[in-house]
């Protein structure tokens, strides 16, 4: 069964460093999302992406963040100059069509900023 994959499963970085979190959505899906969950808090929407551009973003998704679909299969989240408060689990999701459809989630990447 097709699934969303994410790499790495755990990333440790020093404060101020840049990180790139990678996701491979399900192959025929067109809409992509990033969510994050700070330990003990709710899962929060960061950004949605369609047709090679951002379609929606939350107030969390500031200039520190960027997303890209560099090669038609990967969907990446870049965090520039990481802060301690960026430590969280980051989930990628994808869905097939514009009409309501289920979002399929990846297993997440745990980012730890030291």
């Amino acid at each position, binding site marked *: 069964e097709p699934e969303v994959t994410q790499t790495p499963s755990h990333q440790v970085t020093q404060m101020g460093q840049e990180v790139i979190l990678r996701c491979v959505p399900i192959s025929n899906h067109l809409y992509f*999302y990033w969510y994050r969950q700070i330990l003990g808090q*709710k899962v929060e*929407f960061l950004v949605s992406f369609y047709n090679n551009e951002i379609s*929606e973003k939350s107030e969390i998704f500031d200039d520190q963040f960027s997303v890209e679909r560099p090669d038609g299969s990967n969907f990446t989240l870049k965090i520039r100059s990481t802060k301690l408060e960026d430590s969280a689990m980051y989930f990628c999701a994808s*869905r097939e069509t514009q009409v*309501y459809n289920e*979002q399929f989630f990846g297993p*997440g990447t745990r980012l730890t900023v030291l």
Partner: protein
Amino acid sequence: AQSVTQLDSQVPVFEEAPVELRCNYSSSVSVYLFWYVQYPNQGLQLLLKYLSGSTLVKGINGFEAEFNKSQTSFHLRKPSVHISDTAEYFCAVMMRTGANNLFFGTGTRLTVIP
């Protein structure tokens, strides 16, 4: 704005006992309602959803939920739990129009005791 409240952060229950996980939501617009489950080291998996029609919806693994518009609730129930149901459960809403991102609650950790 949308918000989702899961009042119970942890619910311990004995095997074969019934369980109810509570979810209340607040929204100025009509929403779709969801329950997701997260097993250890895995992504979020859709348990069930309410889009329209019958207010009692059945999902995978014997779970069901009832949409109550007047109480703005969408509680999850299972008549008899198994050890394998031990997981984190997230309630979420999505606006019916406009953005298709999910708004999650803080989650309820269900622990089934043998």
